[in-house]
């Protein structure tokens, strides 16, 4: 009885947590819409050029719906978002047609960078925690601190000089095929590495300290006393307890990766959402900028919710 009561209370708490994340996403959308709203030049002017006559400008404003009050336009936009309609860009194209394929490309790039980050961070963090205070541990810690301070565009240039210009191993420029995707998988390698490097540094530190916190726990103690093999202790006795912290770290990395893609995609000429954003801002294309921020915020919200669930699950498991 008490058990069921506790689990239903946990479920209610999780629901509140998730609803709060959704509410925050809506607030972000309102703020983005308003920020883009106060852009100095408006979309009608940006798309017509400075020679346009006042009559042409007024017509274009009416066509884009810019003559309606902000609140009306925002509600209209939000209603569209809920049904997957991102609206029409300042140049009159469907926003989804412009954003769709690049968004998928960026998601592939970001997801692969994240997979690499998780694998590398788990491996390095575990190696370090198995030999606390030894050379390997100190080396991993210093190296991860150093890497995590480097901006992506600096890492990217280093990679290009070494692997593309020096060794001629990998392409430094992404060529887009007619389908809108990168023409070959090899073109993804350097962008993934450039994106992942900083996150590997950040997450290795988190994994190491989260695992180290588990060392004094009683069940780890008895496992050591029983003489279980190290890798067994690490995976079955320490990792489960460290998981919530690690999940929160990786969730934070998703936001940093989606921020990092703007610079990385610019360097490698990668056909992703960062490139769309740069172009949209140059054109003062409000609906496009808002769509990019909305999609990014949505992805981060989903990931944070997943990390909330992992934490709730881990807390629920505790005796």
């Amino acid at each position, binding site marked *: 009885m008490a058990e069921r009561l506790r689990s239903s209370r946990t479920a209610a708490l999780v629901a509140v947590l998730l609803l*709060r*994340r959704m509410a*925050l*996403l809506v*607030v*972000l959308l309102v703020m*983005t819409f308003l*920020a*883009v709203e*106060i*852009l*100095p030049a408006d979309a009608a002017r940006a798309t017509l050029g400075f020679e346009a006559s006042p009559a042409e400008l007024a017509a274009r404003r009416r066509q884009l719906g810019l003559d309606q009050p902000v609140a009306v336009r925002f509600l209209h936009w939000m209603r569209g978002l809920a049904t997957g309609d991102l609206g029409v860009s300042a140049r009159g194209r469907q926003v989804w047609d412009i954003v769709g394929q690049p968004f998928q490309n960026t998601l592939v790039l970001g997801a692969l960078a994240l997979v690499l980050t998780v694998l590398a961070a788990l491996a390095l963090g575990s190696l370090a*925690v*198995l*030999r*606390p*205070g*030894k050379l390997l541990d100190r080396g991993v810690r210093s190296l991860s*601190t*150093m890497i995590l*301070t*480097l*901006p*992506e*565009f*600096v890492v990217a*240039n*280093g990679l*290009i*000089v070494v692997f593309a*210009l020096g060794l001629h191993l990998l392409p430094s420029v992404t060529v887009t095929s007619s389908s809108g995707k990168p023409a070959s998988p090899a073109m993804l390698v350097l962008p993934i590495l450039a994106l992942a490097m900083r996150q590997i540094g950040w997450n290795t530190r988190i994994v190491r300290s989260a695992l*180290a916190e588990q*060392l004094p726990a009683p069940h780890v103690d008895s496992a*050591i006393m029983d003489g279980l093999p*190290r890798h067994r*202790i*690490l995976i079955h006795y320490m990792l489960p307890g460290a998981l919530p912290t690690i999940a929160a770290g990786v969730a*934070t990395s998703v*936001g*940093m990766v*989606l*921020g*990092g893609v*703007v*610079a990385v995609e*610019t*360097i490698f000429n990668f056909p992703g959402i960062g490139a769309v*954003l*740069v172009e949209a*801002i140059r054109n*003062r294309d409000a609906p496009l*900028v808002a769509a*990019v*921020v909305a999609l*990014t*915020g949505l992805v*981060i*919200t989903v990931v*944070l919710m997943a990390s909330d669930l992992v934490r709730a699950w881990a807390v629920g498991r505790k005796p």
Partner: protein
Amino acid sequence: MKRVLRLLPALAVILLAVVGPLFAAHSSTEPVTAPYALPGPGTPLGGDQVGRDVLSRLLIGGRDLMIASALIAVIVTGLAAILGAVAALRPRLGAVIEQTADLLILLPVALGIMVIGVAWPGSGRIPVIVAAIVLGTPFAFRVAAAAAAPVAASGFVEVASARGERTLSLVIREILPNLRATLLTLLGLRFIEAVYVVATASFLEVGAQPPTADWALMIRENADGTLLNPWAVLAPSLAIAVLTVSVSLAFDVLTPQARNRMVTRL
């Protein structure tokens, strides 16, 4: 002595960036050699995309980055310290700022900088600095608030509060002095983060504008000529790397921490 040695790289880089402009042999805006010329007499690092001296631009291009980053780091840490201490005394305010932090997580810094940087009338570094402060403070606040909470709950703060001291006086006289170590670490982290934000913004052409000499902008402008004169890109890349790495090492040394608390057990 060993500690001083580990502080030296950071001090050297900062000093070089600040007094560097005095040693620039050439103008940072006028061409003195051929575009992407290889290193030669008078131009030890060669020329950039219009033939300006890379070494001179390197010596000049770090100062503004450094000043902007230091400004952001000091303001963000100061704001976070005061807000964190107030939040520890007045939990309701703390909850509001906590919500803001959860909100701003949804907006990656690079995206936020671009949106704010473009919405701002005019261009230059001011919008980048403002955006970095607005987007950075809530995260720094979390660290400061977490450190301030146990101090605010301690006996001497209660005594001072019972004595009738005002919130501001409690914050400044009782709480902040006890957060020194945390705030020093925070200052170092915020400086590195600020360098990241300001440099990335310049790289994305929000912030420093051509023909200003700026390390990040140099990397962007000379990317096409990496094969012709690698130094035009490598030198500013290395400069940024050396700056962030050396500063992070320096703050690592400065902050007293429980090192190797863990006993070898496995």
